[in-house]
């Protein structure tokens, strides 16, 4: 996803974007390490979802909703709950998206965001266990793109993290083999929130938060999930087959490290009003 380097873009546009970059400028007048305006709206699905958020990144917007269900744990992790992130490139979001079963790009989006949330230990799944081996909480975070104007991954990551922070669900306990509510509300045990940041390599330039037209001419992109201790917990090179040098990777990482705190602050601020 975010991989429209194969979509048609005119040579004029291609040349224009590259020439601008050579002069140190971007098509929307941003600095190379500058994000578009970010807006996070909490609770658009207040009545039905346990948690929800819309993240807007310039003209890109993604909605995330969290549903909490109960079910059986996986046999290999009997004392752990389950978190899952899915994503859909709804055709509502762009003339480039079509209905039908998810294609590679949608699967990549879901998996990259899922890794950002899961592999980093963002959620302490041990705390999502009700009765070892029998009942655990299943936390589903589902993402739908609403408007696509470049860099869906970062918008999706912001929305997913905000929706998870917003989530409240009734605590359950086992009584006579039946699950009953204890009357308390639980939060998703977020321990170490990782935020995803994406940089594009275009020629010899690295730009963060690529615009849709930048994505169309990029050689490749690098998505980084960065946790609260500035550890990188996931990386994904995608969005084109162009190679990238170590020096450029380092440049992208520095840019990511410089910006991640701002993004994390925005997510925390947006969700801070909740109780």
């Amino acid at each position, binding site marked *: 996803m975010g991989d429209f380097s194969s979509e048609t873009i005119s040579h004029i546009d291609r040349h224009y974007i590259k020439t601008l970059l050579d002069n140190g400028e971007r098509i929307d007048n941003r600095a190379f390490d500058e994000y578009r305006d970010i807006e996070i709206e909490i609770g658009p*699905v207040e009545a*039905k*979802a346990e948690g929800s958020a819309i993240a807007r990144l310039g003209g890109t917007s993604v909605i995330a909703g969290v549903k909490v269900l109960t079910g059986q744990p996986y046999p290999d992790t009997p004392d752990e709950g389950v978190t899952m992130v899915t994503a859909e490139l709804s055709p509502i979001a762009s003339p480039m998206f079509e*209905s039908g079963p998810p294609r590679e790009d949608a699967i990549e989006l879901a998996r990259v965001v899922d890794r950002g949330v899961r592999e980093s230990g963002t959620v302490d799944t041990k705390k999502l266990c009700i009765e070892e081996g029998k009942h655990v909480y299943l936390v589903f975070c589902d993402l*739908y793109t609403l*408007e696509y104007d470049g860099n869906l991954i970062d918008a999706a990551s912001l929305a997913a993290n905000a929706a998870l922070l917003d989530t409240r669900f009734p605590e359950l306990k086992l009584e006579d083999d039946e699950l009953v509510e204890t009357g308390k509300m639980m939060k998703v045990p977020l321990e170490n929130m990782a935020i995803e940041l994406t940089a594009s390599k275009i020629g010899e330039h690295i730009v963060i938060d690529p615009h849709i037209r930048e994505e169309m001419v990029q050689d490749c992109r690098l998505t980084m999930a960065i946790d609260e201790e500035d550890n990188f917990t996931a990386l994904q090179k995608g969005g084109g087959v162009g190679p990238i040098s170590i020096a450029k990777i380092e440049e992208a990482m520095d840019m990511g490290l410089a910006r991640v705190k701002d993004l994390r602050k925005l997510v925390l601020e947006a969700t801070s009003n909740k109780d």
Partner: protein
Amino acid sequence: MSPETKPDFLINPEGLRLDGRRPDEIRPTELEVGILKKADGSAMIKQGNTHILAAVYGPRELHPRHLTLNDRAYLRCEYRMATFSVPDRKRPAPSRREREISMVISNALEPALFLEEFPKAVVDVYIQVIQADGGTRCASINAASLALADAGIPMRSLVPAVAVGKADDKLLVDLGDMEDKYGGGDIPMAIIPRTEEITLLQQDGSFKKEELIEAIRMGINSCKYLHELQKEALKRAYAKRAPAEDDEEDEYEDDLETDLGESDLPEEED
């Protein structure tokens, strides 16, 4: 999660409904046109807790080609519910229910459109239910009709829609989720307001003939009210886009100066 329990009554002794509405009162309804910038046309509806987005793309080339109609454009509606829009997580794949609703929505909207203007093309209408709290197919029609207008698809009329139903033997308009689940029937309907022709009519539950006729009359009245809301939403969207009178003039002057080369803007010359 969020288990729902059957309410003791749907209409209280004072004759009011669960959310305090009168039987012939629709829920607070918010309509907004043009909220999705990528789409050719779009609209949002919030009707009580029901929240739906609709986007229109086209007229554009139709894929797969074997669906082509030689005398008119193909109106393709797709109604989808988000997994988190309902109390239990909905499975992501389109269900039979979603397919059927897509079809009836398309049939409800088509009579209002001049699709013969665009032979062989397709007009795609994508409907995404963000939060479902009853009456989603009707709310979808209300929003989709506005999105089609916003996309500039020639039309005879907007199409308003409402669900009429029954609870405790009283007819109610614009059913909420509880009234839909525990009430005695549901009649989703859509009309072309000027002629009062009905373009969508479905029913479940059990009604007497007189009841049905009265229900449809109530529905027509509510649809006419919704039609007014739709027209207002459309006007609001386009009034906003019209240039504001005083500020604009200054800007034109600036442009003129630039054109004449008299501006102070730094010029880049390498």
